[in-house]
């Protein structure tokens, strides 16, 4: 048993159980929250270090060797994702200390966060497609409850849409798993990658591939399956929004990349062309949706969708540079997007509203916060030297290499429109004079307490963004190596099938 490999799942599970036994003491739960996510971050960095130096890590649950038992695998891509999950979890745990109200804490906010992180890590590390379904469900169930926790009207409406569409996506996923098992008699992804090309009915394989694409497309909020996201992500407390925005859709993207680089690679001409169309439309529709919005978190929600398009675009190009771009984009995006949501929470703390029309003159009140908004916002739009510039640059270069000029044109246009959206938030919330109506809102700020403690995770994530931007080389190197592993599934298959406990 490779303990380091399963620790990103084990640590949050244990912390979740521990928080449940400490139901009465919210104070201890909070500390378990911070310490647990910190431990998760440390363990995931260690895992990444080991994977980088010693190659793909494999562990068989219960000693059942592949393809019979459930196998856990960490390749570079999986390890990177786990690190990002840990970092987001830690930032959100620190942020929650000051922002989650007592009522939500009473009803199990912290245990749920831990279980959510366990589900996310499990999904990143499993090599068994049914096990992936189970981790998805673990993650979804806790996210359902986190979304509805608090029971405000908007939350109920958002949660209903979120639950329905995600349940539907799980059903599609389950059917696809059932059919693929009926065709091959195996569930191990490495084994599937070996057996699927030997099948005679390759048309059916592509059909199942499309079922997976629909299911993961819903979870990743890709066009035209994204409607649950802008309807729900702005309804829970900001800490929950940030966690969801950073991690959950990216689990869908991870599953798409994993499945369409490892398992369904026979009919790339068809499947990846479909992905290319989806990616283009996702980018465009997301950013146009954002342009029409005037609520801080709804704008950010629509931008999640448009950014998902860039990641799928990297996968759809299916070149080393394209996949490298997708991975780099995910690294940059998770940090930046979580941070933008955290900033919106600080703005809410100062003004008591998320409506851009009612916000204003935040720059005068909190200049430091405004700078901290600009860092992730400009990074999201792709302004050098921040992390988003390199992410977009790589994807666009990959597009130019395969001469997909139309798509590259759309990607550049979307970058411009992203900048427009971010400048809109800046002008409305930070720069313009506060409207008259905001005075009574400001008056309530006293009761909401100081926003300064919220800055700790925001500063941390902003520093990471700047660090990736100014020091992009090591990140590019790691992403390139991860992309090479993805494009050469033989490494993954060999590691899973031939390693012995």
């Amino acid at each position, binding site marked *: 048993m490779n303990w380091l490999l399963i620790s990103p799942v084990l640590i949050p599970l244990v912390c979740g159980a521990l928080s449940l036994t400490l139901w009465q003491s919210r104070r201890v739960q909070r500390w378990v929250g911070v310490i647990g996510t910190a431990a998760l971050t440390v363990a995931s960095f260690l895992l990444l270090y080991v994977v980088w130096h010693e190659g793909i890590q494999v562990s068989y649950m219960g000693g059942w060797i592949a393809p019979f038992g459930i196998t856990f695998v960490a390749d570079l891509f999986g390890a990177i994702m786990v690190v990002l999950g840990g970092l987001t979890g830690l930032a959100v745990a620190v942020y929650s200390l000051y922002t989650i109200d007592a009522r939500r804490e009473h009803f199990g906010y912290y245990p749920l966060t831990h279980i959510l992180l366990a589900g996310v890590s499990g999904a990143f590390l499993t090599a068994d497609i049914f096990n992936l379904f189970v981790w998805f469900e673990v993650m979804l169930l806790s996210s359902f409850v986190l979304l509805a926790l608090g029971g405000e009207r908007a939350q109920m409406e958002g*949660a209903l849409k979120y639950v*329905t569409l995600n349940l539907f996506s799980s059903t599609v996923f389950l059917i696809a798993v059932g059919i693929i098992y009926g065709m091959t008699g195996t569930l191990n992804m490495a084994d599937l990658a070996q057996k699927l090309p030997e099948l005679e009915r390759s048309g059916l394989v592509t059909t199942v591939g499309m079922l997976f694409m629909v299911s993961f497309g819903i979870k990743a909020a890709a066009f035209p399956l994204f409607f649950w996201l802008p309807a729900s992500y702005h*309804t829970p407390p900001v800490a929950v929004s940030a966690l969801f925005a950073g991690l959950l859709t990216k689990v869908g993207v991870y599953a798409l990349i994993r499945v369409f680089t490892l398992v369904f690679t026979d009919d790339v001409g068809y499947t990846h062309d479909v992905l290319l169309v989806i990616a283009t439309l996702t980018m465009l529709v997301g950013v146009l949706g954002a342009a029409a919005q005037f609520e801080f978190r709804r704008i950010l929600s629509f931008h999640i969708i448009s950014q998902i398009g860039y990641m799928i675009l990297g996968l759809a190009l299916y070149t080393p540079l394209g996949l490298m771009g997708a991975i780099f984009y995910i690294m940059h995006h998770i940090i930046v997007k979580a941070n933008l949501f955290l900033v919106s929470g600080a703005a809410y703390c100062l003004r008591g509203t998320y409506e851009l029309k009612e916000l204003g003159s935040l720059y005068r009140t909190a200049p430091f916060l405004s700078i901290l908004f600009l860092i992730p916002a400009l990074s999201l739009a792709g302004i050098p030297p921040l992390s988003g510039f390199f992410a977009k640059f790589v994807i666009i270069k990959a597009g130019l290499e395969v001469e997909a000029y139309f798509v590259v044109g759309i990607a550049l246009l979307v970058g411009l429109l992203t900048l427009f959206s971010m400048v809109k938030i800046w002008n409305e919330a930070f720069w313009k004079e506060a409207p008259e109506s905001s005075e009574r809102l400001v008056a309530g700020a006293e009761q909401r307490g100081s926003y300064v403690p919220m800055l700790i995770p925001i500063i941390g994530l902003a520093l990471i963004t700047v660090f990736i931007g100014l020091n992009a080389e090591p990140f590019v190197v790691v992403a390139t190596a991860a992309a090479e592993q993805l494009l050469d599934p033989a490494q993954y298959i060999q590691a899973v099938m031939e390693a012995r406990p």
Partner: protein
Amino acid sequence: MEPFLAVVVGGLFAAGLYMILRRSIVKLLIGLVLLSNAANLVIFVTAGLHRGVPPLVPEGASAPLHTVADPLPQALVLTAIVISFGVLAFAMALVHRTHAMVKTDDINDLTSTDS
């Protein structure tokens, strides 16, 4: 048996989708129940139905001698049933709570987050 079950699965899907597309949130829930059961049946059928051949290995042999029923899909279905039970119980509570709060059963009235 398989063709019959295939028709049943198709019927369940049709009914489930129809119910999801209605405007009532209670019917939405019923639709989800039907869909998740249809998915379970699909898994059950795809691996092939064999009657009266338990997957037992005779003494002294290292593999079963004849075709046997595959136990794995049943384990999968069992897992899926447990998960969908939990999820649907939550969905039911959610629907109940939504109804208590919004005082309507019509999905078209749940638009306050969309504007």
